[in-house]
């Protein structure tokens, strides 16, 4: 049912599932310690649903690890309500505690209200606020590690976007985040979006949901199309981009100055400049 374009190998559903599970297991072994309370960032879309499903498969028998699902409701009319229903259903099915936080709770407004008239910045604003909301929800529920459903495509796109923006600190991840943010892991980062979709379809957990109405404005959309073309003509491109980033980050370790974080003077959240990006957005007209 699946052909790995980089190797030319064909895989049936069973072997695709085994291969994905192995990659996720490897990521967990490196990042998870006994006693961990794992918060799964669950939007209800295919990636985070597959993540929840796999973590449940791998961890449900372990008494030393606890799973809970965390959802951020940004307040995007005609979009988020569908995925919220899916998130509630999947957590009920696997008997996993589910907690939701809304943008309205942390900012007083929905994303639709916040970005009205500046839709071209919606993804940036949403990303910053979502991160803040997720950290708060995770802290409120005693989460020790946050697992997100970012896949290979997402990660390769982000690396390229950081290059295009000339954003070296984010490219090399030199922000001093230890002990400030709840650590994040990305167990699906070596699994492509296509593999995730096929796996979800084969397991009967795929739900076709609408795409975010703001995605049209994002730089990510341009980068995605470009990368998909490169992956077609040169299979393995996305994986090589991740390997390249890891090598560059390792080579620059100790050379680049770590950027210290200080509390935001408005909300107390850690930031670089004394005023966090979330508060900066909320104050700007």
């Amino acid at each position: 049912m699946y052909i790995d374009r980089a190797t030319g190998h064909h895989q049936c559903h069973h072997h695709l599932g085994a291969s994905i599970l192995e990659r996720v297991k490897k990521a967990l072994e490196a990042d998870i310690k006994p006693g961990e309370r794992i918060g799964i960032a669950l939007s209800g879309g295919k990636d985070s649903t597959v993540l929840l499903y796999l973590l449940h498969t791998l961890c449900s028998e372990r008494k030393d690890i606890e799973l809970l699902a965390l959802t951020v409701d940004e307040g995007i009319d005609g979009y988020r309500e569908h995925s919220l229903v899916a998130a509630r259903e999947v957590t009920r099915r696997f008997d996993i505690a589910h907690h939701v936080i809304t943008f309205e709770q942390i900012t007083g407004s929905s994303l639709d209200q916040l970005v009205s008239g500046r839709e071209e910045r919606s993804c940036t604003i949403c990303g910053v606020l979502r991160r803040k909301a997720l950290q708060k929800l995770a802290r409120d529920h005693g989460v020790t590690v946050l697992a997100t459903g970012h896949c290979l495509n997402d990660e390769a796109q982000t690396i390229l976007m950081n290059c295009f923006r000339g954003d070296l600190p984010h490219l090399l991840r030199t922000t001093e985040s230890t002990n400030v943010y709840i650590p994040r892991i990305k167990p699906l980062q070596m699994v492509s979006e296509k593999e995730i979709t096929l796996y979800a379809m084969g397991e009967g957990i795929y739900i076709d949901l609408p795409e975010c109405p703001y995605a049209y404005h994002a730089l990510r959309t341009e980068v995605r199309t470009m990368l998909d073309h490169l992956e077609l003509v040169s299979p393995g491109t996305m994986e090589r981009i991740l390997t390249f980033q890891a090598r560059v980050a390792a080579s620059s370790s100790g050379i680049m100055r770590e950027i210290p974080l200080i509390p935001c003077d408005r909300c107390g959240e850690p930031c670089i400049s004394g005023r966090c990006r979330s508060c900066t957005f909320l104050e700007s007209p």
Partner: protein
Amino acid sequence: MVRVYLPDENVRDMGQDPIRIEDLLHKLGINPVEVIVARNGELTPESEITLGEDVIRVYRISHGG
């Protein structure tokens, strides 16, 4: 006649000559990396070759989630 159901719900009849699904997608201007294909209801790799009466359904991979 191979009948193709596209993600935008359009339907295209593509003739009876055997063709690799990947080439079929290229003919339709679709990047195989961005879609999932089912042939006669079964998920299938793009390396497969169509037969005369096949029904091909193309699903666009939705982003996010």
